[in-house]
């Protein structure tokens, strides 16, 4: 199939529909508005349904309901809107239902701004809601990757009966790049025999619930959930390693920031400084095993983020004290420049040579 040029928000919507998404519930917020707009225009053509809810809280609970009925369902929002959805996300995770949540993030905290940011790393990976739950979190760096991750997200959500998040910043939402829609690798997906679709008098009712007042029963449920998360950690980690050979410093960066980092790596190479990149594609599970492949030449790690320093916590855990871990970041919608990143690397290496 020939490549087509699409805006990120629309490409994610198109990918969702290709993956069989039939229902979308959302509430407007910049910079992701083209996504619900696209769904409102396109979903009815495939026999689906788009609803603009009266609030984010309402939208995520509509997702809860549709997921409980076994539908492929999605919602999208941007940072403060995703914050509002956290209660529902925790309930959906607790009730073990599949859905896809897209966060085209913006600067925070609070209402913040509308320019690109990555300050929702904690929110995505640490559970913005309550309880011992995890989301599978994809952080694409290009529109092709956004399309691929979105299409696969629906299968993974069904496979694990768990919400899957796709997080991009405003740049991913707003930019245009050539994309093509490729079928994800086929998975054996279990029947949704838990869905509340009516018993027709033939079976006991299915119950979808996240309330368990018996502590022993709730602990048992949590142990079951943990086993599932363990399986995700073993099987779903994605990352890219770039220019690692003889790297003096290894940067860790994700999403669009990783692309700026690659420009900095090219510039440093011209000056004879070899710098590598570990780019997590899944933020959770975090690619701990990538750190086992760091070469002996590496003197330090540098986490580069569009935040004041969030992923750096995971980088420190993954490094296990083997390397000093430095940080460079911009926030509030300010975007790091390749020059500034390169200068930070030189500072770590003890000045320009």
């Amino acid at each position, binding site marked *: 199939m020939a490549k087509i040029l699409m805006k990120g928000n629309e490409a994610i919507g198109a990918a969702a529909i290709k993956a069989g998404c039939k229902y979308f519930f959302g509430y407007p917020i*910049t910079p992701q508005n083209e996504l619900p707009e696209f769904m409102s225009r396109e979903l009815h053509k495939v026999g689906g349904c788009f609803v603009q809810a009266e609030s984010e809280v309402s939208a995520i609970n509509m997702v809860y309901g549709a997921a409980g009925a076994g539908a492929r369902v999605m919602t999208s929002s941007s940072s403060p809107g995703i914050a509002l959805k956290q209660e529902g996300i925790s309930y959906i995770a607790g009730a073990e239902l599949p859905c896809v949540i897209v966060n085209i993030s913006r600067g925070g905290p609070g209402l913040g701004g509308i320019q690109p940011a990555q300050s929702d790393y904690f929110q995505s990976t640490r559970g913005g809601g309550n309880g011992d739950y995890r989301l599978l979190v994809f952080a694409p760096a290009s529109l092709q990757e956004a399309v691929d991750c979105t299409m696969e997200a629906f299968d993974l959500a069904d496979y694990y009966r768990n919400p899957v998040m796709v997080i991009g910043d405003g740049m991913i939402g707003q930019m245009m790049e050539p994309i093509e829609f490729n079928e994800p690798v086929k998975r054996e997906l279990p029947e949704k025999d838990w869905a509340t679709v009516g018993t027709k008098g033939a079976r006991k009712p299915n119950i979808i619930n996240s309330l368990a007042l018996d502590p022993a029963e709730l602990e048992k449920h949590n142990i079951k959930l943990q086993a599932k998360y363990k399986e995700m950690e073993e099987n779903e980690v994605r990352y890219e390693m770039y220019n690692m050979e003889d790297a003096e410093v290894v940067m860790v960066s994700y999403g669009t920031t990783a692309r700026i980092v690659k420009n900095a790596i*090219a510039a440093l190479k011209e000056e004879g400084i070899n710098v590598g990149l570990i780019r997590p594609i899944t933020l959770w599970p975090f690619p701990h095993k990538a750190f086992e492949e760091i070469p002996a030449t590496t003197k330090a790690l540098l986490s580069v983020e569009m935040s004041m320093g969030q992923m750096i916590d995971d980088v420190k855990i993954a490094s296990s004290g083997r390397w000093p871990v430095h940080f460079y970041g911009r926030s509030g919608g300010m975007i790091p420049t390749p020059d500034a990143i390169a200068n930070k690397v030189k500072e770590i290496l003890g000045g320009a040579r």
Partner: protein
Amino acid sequence: MATQQVICAGFGGQGVMSMGQLLTYAGMIEGKNVSWLPSYGPEMRGGTANCSVVVSDKPVGSPIITDATTAIVMNLPSMIKFEKDLVKDGILLINSSLIDKKPSRDDVKAYFVPANEIANELGNAKVANMVMLGAFLELTKTVEVDSIVAALKKVFGPAKEHLVPMNKDALERGAAAVRA
């Protein structure tokens, strides 16, 4: 080819976004790596608009442009804002119909194209952006004019195919304006 990093800027309605999109589309048709990144945010009617286009034979790194090889500026605020982002010897394409000042830098190659006058001569003020795009292609050969025409047909669709000849004329007049 060298990586082309192009900033298109002007006020809302001058077609700077579509100029950038056509260039991006044409690059994709030619099998090149491309990205198009718009500015977005609160803006008043008639306010500034700009987009960043990267066309390269290598995978596109950052879609944000900090070292522009070309800036196409359609009005004065855009020239003031973006001339500083040009690399040394970068191309500054100035819409001299609306910009009566010289650029402040003397280490860039400035070209003056009276895009609005040329567009008006062609009978449609809206093709001023295509005049500038024609000049850009003549100077940089980033993509073939034919690819822009193919992109136009895809973007406009069959209903507006009758507008293609005028756009082609505008591209040609823009090219002629910078031909030495």
